[in-house]
């Protein structure tokens, strides 16, 4: 029987009500395709660590980020610190993605809020209290690494 995705003792992302220590949705290798990569966070790393290429409802490229750094940003989005995390906001302070980091005595849990679209303007992900939800109509690959068997 195959093992389900691995969960970390230190930090995880809440996706569809379940814990994931690392997750990739979409196709980072294609230059004009949506992706969101929730990277594994180890003790000492910034929390959380995100990469992604995000589009608007019209399929326009909004931004691309690599390990939390904005590398393509035609609309002038900013990463604004919020209580418990940060948000990606446009010049009118509208957030497209907000991350909330819940801390407990020995670890961290990241919850993402917002809506993300692919390069055709289809909704791909929506985040809320139960974490990120993958929109089932979206034909994006969904990958999570197997456990490392410590």
């Amino acid at each position, binding site marked *: 029987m195959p093992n389900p995705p691995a969960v970390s003792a*230190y930090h995880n992302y809440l996706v569809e009500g379940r814990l994931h220590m690392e997750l990739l949705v979409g196709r980072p290798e294609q230059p004009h395709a949506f992706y969101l990569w929730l990277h594994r966070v180890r003790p000492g790393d910034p929390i959380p660590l995100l990469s992604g290429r995000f589009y608007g409802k019209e399929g326009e490229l909004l931004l691309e980020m690599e390990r939390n750094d904005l590398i393509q940003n035609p609309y002038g989005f900013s990463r604004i610190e919020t209580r418990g995390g940060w948000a990606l906001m446009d010049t009118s302070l509208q957030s497209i993605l907000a991350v909330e980091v819940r801390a407990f*005595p020995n670890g961290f849990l990241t919850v993402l809020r917002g809506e993300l679209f692919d390069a055709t303007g289809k909704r791909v992900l929506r985040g809320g209290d139960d974490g990120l939800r993958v929109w089932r109509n979206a034909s994006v690959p969904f990958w999570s690494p197997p456990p490392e068997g410590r």
Partner: protein
Amino acid sequence: MTERTTPPNPEVWVFGDHRDYFKNRVTLELLAHGRSLAEALDTRCAVAVLGHRIETYIMEYIAHGAQAVYAMTAPHLAHFKVTTYARALVEMVRIYRPSVLLIGGTDFGMEFAPRVAKQLETGLSADCVELRVDPTNGALVQTAPAFGGRLLVDVITPDRRPQMATVRPGIFQERPHDPEATAPVFYVDPVPLEENDPLEVLEVEPLQEEECSLEEAQVVVSGGRGMGSDQGFSLLHRLARLLGGEVGGTRPAVIQGWIPKERMIGQTGRAVRPKVLLTFGTSGALQYTAAIRRTEFIIAVDRDPDAPIFRTADLGVVGDALDILPRLIRALEARKGTKEVSDAESARG
């Protein structure tokens, strides 16, 4: 090594009792011992956890040695309700068929484990003080008290599975927290809410108990029937204050009302593992010595030179605790007084 599939052999499971977590460590203790059992059985040690919004506990169990997690989460599992929880755990066991199932011997566990065992039609050994694998046949040998605690017996469950045992808090030692640990988490579909369930949890209010940290104490002063009265126990409290320790007692002392039951040391009470235990007027019944065996150094005082406690103690004093205690207290108070005067003089220069 990357572990992509479940191990070929049935797993060792620990039930995740996360009530009062951070204070209640029994699941972590069982996970640590479960790891060694799993190693002997060439399998892995997993935790089965039920509840609602249990992400923290899942991560904590992984950090403390769980090599896999089986989680059932739903709002109606938010409270530890014995009927629903028994149904849920039985469902998980029937799906994944572990070889061993260990449950903490807490108040909840003592009611919960027999229900689970009955529904699974398997055996259950309560209050085990040792669990090991028989290398000849891979059976779990469950060492548990019998005949009112006068004997320790080895129990095996040759045919039925899982092999079930409960273990009191403090018997085993937890593993250190490892933030780098990872493990797969199997999410199991929740059992439905029972219709017409006669038991409904309306509210959970934590019991206000006397603050007692016997399990963590570095010095424990303990007394038994030989202390004679609650005045005798007041001497133990004075000694414990002088030594910066905690006071415990045997079952007879609890029955006499000399010490509250939260401070009972024994198989049906608390297990202690201090650096030093001073035990006065305790004969050394098995159910008591099993709960003090992880102490680094035991000093025993008893009138009976043949008392079994002297076989467990590192240092034995044959004498009346009520004669020896006042003298010991006076000596310590004198030393403390001398030290305080000396410290004050040093401070004055």
